[in-house]
């Protein structure tokens, strides 16, 4: 399996609080890696460092051979990085379909020149984006609610829309921040299926999740983080079985 995202010697501290302590991590194509650890272990901070929301103190991040450190958030996304957010961050002023339509790497109105002078190009990109968004909505079981505003759908559906929106740009690497928190029933099964399908298409996936059953079902491998450090890497079963890690996770 090819390495997609490679993190080397990544360090970040906010004042005295270390959120990334010499982290080395590799995500492979078609592979789902679970990030496990108690709150404050640095899991979401690691995502923020990879996405460019937070600048690292030192270290290297490469995506498919391309160095990311100097790039702004938007350029990292265009290089093939996608993520979902713990607190969703959907666009409440837009319908489900319009949320997705903003996602393609090449958006119809990225260039003002096109908007003003080349309506045919814009219309073509719009039609392509719509078709792609509708097909993703169908695959994720959301086609019925495509035209609904975000506040009119259930929380589980909103989580799923977040995943669907992250699928729009043909990402090479997808970071999922607690996709299952607060989700149950039908949406749970749909999110599980969506993540499996994305992995099967060759995308490297990293999941932060506290739902152990979900992690065990879905992840090829797990990483245990604590206080900004990667403490252990292995199958999810062995990590869960490790009494020392369990103690760190639950505290004593």
């Amino acid at each position: 399996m090819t390495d997609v995202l490679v993190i080397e010697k990544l360090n970040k501290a906010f004042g005295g609080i270390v959120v990334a302590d010499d982290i080395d991590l590799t995500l492979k194509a078609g592979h789902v890696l679970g990030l496990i650890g108690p709150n404050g272990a640095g899991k979401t901070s690691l995502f923020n460092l990879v996405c460019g929301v937070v600048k690292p103190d030192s270290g290297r991040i490469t995506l498919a051979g391309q160095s990311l450190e100097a790039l702004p958030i938007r350029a990292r996304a265009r290089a093939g990085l996608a993520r979902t957010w713990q607190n969703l961050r959907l666009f409440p002023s837009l319908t489900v379909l319009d949320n997705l339509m903003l996602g393609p790497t090449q958006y119809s109105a990225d260039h003002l020149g096109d908007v003003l002078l080349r309506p045919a190009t814009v219309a073509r990109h719009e039609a392509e984006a719509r078709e792609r968004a509708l097909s993703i909505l169908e695959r994720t079981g959301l086609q019925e609610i495509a035209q609904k505003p975000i506040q009119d759908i259930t929380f589980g559906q909103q989580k799923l829309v977040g995943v669907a929106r992250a699928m729009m740009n043909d990402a090479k690497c997808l970071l999922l921040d607690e996709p299952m928190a607060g989700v149950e029933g039908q949406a749970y099964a749909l999110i599980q299926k969506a993540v499996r399908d994305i992995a099967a298409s060759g995308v490297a996936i990293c999941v932060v999740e506290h739902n152990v059953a979900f992690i065990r079902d879905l992840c090829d491998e797990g990483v245990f983080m604590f206080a900004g450090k990667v403490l252990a890497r292995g199958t999810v079963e062995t990590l869960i079985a490790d009494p020392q890690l369990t103690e760190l996770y639950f505290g004593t």
Partner: protein
Amino acid sequence: MDYIYTMIILIGLFVILAASFDLVIGHCGLISIAHPIFYAIGAYVSAMLAKEAGWPVPFAMLAGGLAALVSSILVALPSLRVSGDYLLIASIGFQLGLIELAKHIHSIGGAGGLTNIPSFLVAEHGRLAYVLLVVAVAVLTVLFVRWLAHGPYGRMMAALRDDELAFSMLGRNAIWLKVSVFAIGSGIAGLAGGLYAHYFRFLEPDQFGLLQSSAILTMVVVGGMRTTWGPVIGAIVLQILPQAITFLGLPPSVLGPLQGLLFSGLVLVFMFARPQGLIAASDIWSGRDAGGRPR
């Protein structure tokens, strides 16, 4: 009749200003109230090019719009790179600073004002021709803003307003979008400035100050942000209201402050009683082909 024509021209100019300002503050959510300074730049550049350099007025007007557009990019680019909030401070500083500067430049008339600006259309074709020109530009501006806001560009503006971080994480360029919208809005204001200059043929720096900022803001807020008709209704109502109180026969020393009170009072009343304005925008963005009709 001349009075009516002049009123229609003023209303038309404020429709252009309010609609272009709504693009900036309503549709894109950029907090700035310095719209009149770009109106001023357009007016002065156009007037000077026609008066001193002998340019044909239509070209001078277009150049005025272009000058406003370029200067707005120079103001917006550094402040928007830092954070959206800095735009308000930077643009007000630019507005008030430039007004003070203009008062001390004698070649553009200084504080006394720029006089004898070449007229356009009125001498050969009468005032009605100028009315038609201004109304045409106003209609085109309203239609252009509506078209932009309800196409794929409008979808971007709605998303940017909602969540800039999520917007950037989709690969979209938030800074460039903000600078572009600010430049388009300011460029249109500059064009309106040229239309003002060659009709009234007199400009003074003080008329482009904070009172005018509050007038345009009031028009957008009272009319209804992010609607096609809001800025139009707002411009008409707020142009006619102050004119109506001039018939009360109050002395000018009372009338000026009274108009200021009227504008600020209306904004306060509307913020409490009807924050959506006279015409309410839909909470959910609707595109041209999404089935929802833009309001």
